């Protein structure tokens, strides 16, 4: 266990879990956080899945990084996912670096950091591990499962594995199988880390490589229009071009800052493992090339959401999920939200988006509670 995360909530899973890679893990920690209170009938629980660089600290101040939680725009008191009303659960994924079993943890057998000796994990492994947490919390049926990007992939995997465990599902800005473009972009990030000479050295971290990976990834989270409007060709210092390779443009300086701050909170090996899990995600292949079979038994009501300027997980990929759901007669709604903010839209204050989630959740909540009264 690494010392930074020893005071946070963890469930030690004493059962064994066979990973997709064939290895069996047992006695492993899953770090998690909860917000709000579970009601008596245990019908107000929402499982939130985090994305690539997220963690269990969805809202409020993250006790480790001391920064705001990654989904403070959507989750909290009076927010779209209102913690006054709902019980929100989020776990750090397997392979993560915020206290869950991952490459940053100590291997009890060798007393050394796992590093790249950690087994390769998949989205399905991540989801199976989180099912143990729900069992531990005594939640038999969730009001909703939701998440954006890799979080959305976990939503799809969850409803496919446990078709009767969620009243509703909100996959956001995601895809049922990672595209060649996205695999390529992830590979770029991984290579940046692995060519950093510090990557293989003991007691050092490949900060430069990880920073570059983050810089490249960050571009993919924004849109061309968004970048142009925010930065344009604005210069860092008001003066003129420096005729050097310093950060002349504001966009350069912004990216450098994003890279530099990222390495303080994220583990390079976790970045390798989690991007790999995303690349391996192919729900269609799990069902012999017929995605609708993944949802054949689902009882969940779906609200699929995409963003108009998201080119990383474009509307067309989100719509493939909708088409597969329709093909098996599932209960599905879909909307593309207009936003210039690219893939990152799901993390930002986009009122139409937040309103849609908020109202979809309350209508689901009301339907369930009306049924109970009858």
């Amino acid at each position, binding site marked *: 266990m690494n010392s930074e995360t020893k005071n946070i909530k963890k469930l030690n899973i004493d059962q064994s879990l066979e990973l997709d890679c064939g290895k069996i893990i047992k006695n492993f920690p899953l770090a998690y956080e909860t917000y709000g209170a579970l009601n008596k009938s245990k019908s107000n629980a929402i499982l939130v899945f985090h994305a690539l660089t997220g963690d269990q600290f969805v809202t409020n101040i993250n006790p480790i990084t001391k920064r705001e939680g990654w989904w403070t725009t959507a989750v909290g008191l009076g927010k779209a996912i209102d913690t006054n009303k709902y019980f929100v659960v989020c776990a750090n994924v397997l392979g993560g670096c915020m206290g869950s079993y991952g490459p940053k943890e100590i291997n009890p057998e060798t007393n050394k950091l796992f590093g790249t000796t950690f087994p390769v994990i998949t989205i399905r492994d991540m989801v199976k591990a989180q099912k143990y947490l729900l069992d531990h919390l005594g939640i038999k049926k969730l009001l909703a499962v939701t998440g954006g990007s890799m979080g959305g992939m976990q939503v799809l995997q969850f409803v496919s594995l446990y078709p009767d465990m969620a009243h509703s599902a909100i996959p956001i800005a995601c895809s049922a199988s990672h595209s060649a473009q996205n695999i390529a972009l992830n590979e770029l990030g991984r290579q940046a880390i692995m060519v950093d000479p510090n990557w293989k050295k003991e007691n050092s971290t490949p900060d430069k490589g990880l920073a570059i990976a983050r810089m490249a990834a960050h571009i993919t989270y924004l849109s061309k229009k968004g970048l142009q409007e925010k930065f344009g060709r604005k210069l860092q210092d008001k003066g003129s071009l420096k005729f050097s390779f310093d950060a002349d443009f504001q966009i350069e300086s912004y990216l450098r800052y994003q890279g530099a701050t990222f390495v303080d909170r994220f583990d390079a090996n976790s970045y390798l493992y989690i991007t790999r899990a995303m690349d391996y995600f192919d729900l269609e292949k799990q069902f012999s090339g017929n995605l609708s079979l993944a949802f054949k038994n689902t009882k969940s*009501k*779906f*609200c699929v959401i995409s963003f108009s300027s998201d080119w990383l997980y474009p509307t067309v990929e989100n*719509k493939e999920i*909708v*088409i597969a759901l*329709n*093909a098996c*007669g599932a*209960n*599905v*709604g*879909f*909307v*593309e*939200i*207009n936003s210039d903010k690219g893939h990152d839209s799901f993390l930002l204050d986009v009122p*139409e988006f937040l*309103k*849609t989630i908020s*109202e*979809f959740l309350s*209508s*689901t909540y*009301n*339907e369930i509670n009306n049924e109970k009264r009858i």
Partner: protein
Amino acid sequence: MKKEFEVISQIIQNNKRVLDIGCGDGTLMEYLKANQQNDVRGLEPEKYLVQKCISKGLSVIEGDAEKELVQFPEKSFDYVVLSQTLQAFLHPEEVLDQLLRIGRQTIVSIPNFGYWKVRLHLLIKGTMPITKNLPNEWYNTPNLHMCTIQDFVNFCNKKNITIDKSMCLTNEKISAITKVNMQYKNIFSQLGIFLIQ
């Protein structure tokens, strides 16, 4: 709820699966779900209307019927509803083929271009008719393929589409269309509503 929707909801039996194409703000869907225990889905091209529907807990997909209908399996709904939209499609015949494929039965309503006020407008004024049901000018109307009740019936006959029910609406009054009164109804009805398969 408008009279047309009352008529449509009366045609639809309880506890059946219904797909509402161009469902708008979901008024008909809401009624069917609450009062007739129908399992309803909708398709709507306007974002703000889709959001409205989702807010109400209605499962509506944002999309264009001319492109999206292929994704629904054959006979996956008991009823497919298309209210006053057929004339607005670029390829109404293809859309209708899709509706008939997806639904066991299809309910189509059309604004009647044979209505006497429409005929009179064109006859007297010599300009494209503007009425309560057809409020737009020729240059900004969404209606690309206007037809009359007689046209629609002829079309169904030609394509071997069975008409199970045909009704018409005039000034909120509902009546049945029969072979005998067809000529008359084609002049005096504002709207035709058909149950076909």
